[in-house]
């Protein structure tokens, strides 16, 4: 995975074979429950309009982020930086999948 930029906006890459499917998406949603004040979104780098709310598993899956997709991860609000960094870490370990 690659991380570009700083603060509460980074670019992450989907590294696992299956992509951002239901299971990792659900874990991602769960992670955000520790950050009730933060708004975190993911958007495809190649289509910034495709913005997904990271609290909605459905919108995450609809992103259709397969292996190798670059996504813009941005956060705002309370503790946004911590939330973004936690999610970026989750991308970095390929969602604990192969």
């Amino acid at each position: 995975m690659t991380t570009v930029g700083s603060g509460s906006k980074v670019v992450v890459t989907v590294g696992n074979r299956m992509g951002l499917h239901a299971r990792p998406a659900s874990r991602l949603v769960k992670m955000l429950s520790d950050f009730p004040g933060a708004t975190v979104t993911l958007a495809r780098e190649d289509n910034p309009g495709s913005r997904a709310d990271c609290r909605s598993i459905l919108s995450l899956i609809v992103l259709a982020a397969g292996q190798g997709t670059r996504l813009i991860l941005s956060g705002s609000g309370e503790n946004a930086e911590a939330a973004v960094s936690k999610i970026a870490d989750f991308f970095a370990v390929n969602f604990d999948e192969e």
Partner: protein
Amino acid sequence: MPFSGQNFKVIAISPGIAVGRVQPIRRKGAPGAPVLHEISPEMVPAELERFRQCVRDTREQLIALTQAVRTKLHTEDAGIFDAHLMLVDDLSLTSEVEKRISDNLWPAEYALYDTAEYFVRVFSNIQDEFLRERAADIRDVFDRLMGNLSKQERRKTDRDDRRIIVANSLSPSETVSLDNSRILGFAIETGSATCHTAILARSMRLPAVAGVPAEVINSLSADDKIIIDGFSGRLIVNPDDRTEESYRLRAKSAVEFYHKLERDKRLRPETTDGFEIDLAINIGSADGIAELKRSGASGIGLLRTEFLFLETRTLPDEETQFEIYKKMLIAAEDAPVIVRTMDIGGDKLDNNIFRSSESNPFLGLRGIRLCLYERRDLFETQLRALLRAGVYGNLRIMFPMVSSVLEVLEVRRIISELQARLAEEKKEFLRKPVLGVMIETPAAALMADELGKHVDFFSIGTNDLVQYTMAIDRGNERVAYLYKPAHPAILKLIHTTVAAARKHNIYVSVCGQMAADPELIPLLVGLGVNELSAESGSLPLMRRVIRSISLYDAARVAEAAMASPDAYTSLELSLDLLKRCVPELFTENIAGKERK
């Protein structure tokens, strides 16, 4: 209905004839749009409440599933239900549906259907192959929601008539969940004589056909009437009166013939020259034991234990399993009961429970492989329960999907360990369990001589043996024409197995679909197997065939069949013998049906 009056050639998978109205079961991929009609604004709150109730029901089911799975399985497998639960709770899903109900004045079904279609459309545009496949998760959730919604509906409109189930395909758990007393028969698109729908239909003595074209399945509605002929493989849509009448007559004559055969159930299944073939039955649940007396079988040739996992949706502990096995063994009195240890993998499980991520599960970690290398905990629990229950009857334990002697040695080592622990715990258990292996891989058949040194019996699982030998997926109707148990390659593998068994003085049973096919019985008898085991509904016909032929003739036919160039020639040899010895099979249209 565009196909009215048309007569389709399909695949016969369970004998019998049914004439009746259709009960369509629509699921994944089928364009089963609910009827769209506008509702009055006063009905909106009620429809919203129906949808919310269905969300609550779905949540409850998923929570129960998650818990059942989490206690016994990898957390990874339980994780998928977490994801499903989250999808159900997802605000964008519920608000989309509710918006359609209140703004468009749509009934809940149509609102849910339309929302599902929207997301499915989004998914079908996904380029990434893996992700597109994972979109199945969303479809699963919508199917579950729709199922719960229509259950509410069904309660309202229950009509008390028996119907022919029409579906693209039915999973084992769906088949089990159908109400038997309402079913006249089955007509499905995807399936074969060895699929679970076929096995179930035969055990319920209901006719079934497969290979029905998808466009026919999708256009049939509850108002259409069809005829299915499970003898010759025919499906007729909205027949004219004459056709219907002639089929009703044939159905009656076929039923009478079967009843006549049933009266012979006390006659010994021996050939005309006096060789007895044991006739046993395959059962898939504890209740099946009742079939033992009813069918006049000598024992249970195959008890599939997957029901333990499917029906309760939890994995029962040792005590529960012990009680189930004990009760069955006592009920069987001294008749032998062959219990197959859990055969998970391949098509054998509800994907909702054991979601495997293998790209080719039939060649993956299934049967004994899963038991030895991944789920040894479950395997040991089952073996302990069996060893303890074994003292109450005539138990034989059988292991599926064996492909190497090393697996048998490992199983034996585990059993000794478990016995030592049971002895320490001062529990009663079988000291010398009777152990056997399924011969269902070509490797096992070719190595039968080695395997025979370490086991007490063989049971040939022909469904998988044919699949693995011919390299065809049994569920794939495009290669179904290659599914030929009479193929000389299969006969040679059975011959090798029987020869090894004779050398080691152990017995050979056949528990696959081949054992139940009257056209193939002469070959099996001729090859020298000791026992044929099938669904109880097939026994009367099997008994008739065995009692009509001689071992001498059958052995000569089998020898010639093994030396024949292809499956057609070998089948012809068997049919020739049957025409001479059991002509009633042909006058009743049971054998000699068209085979490609």
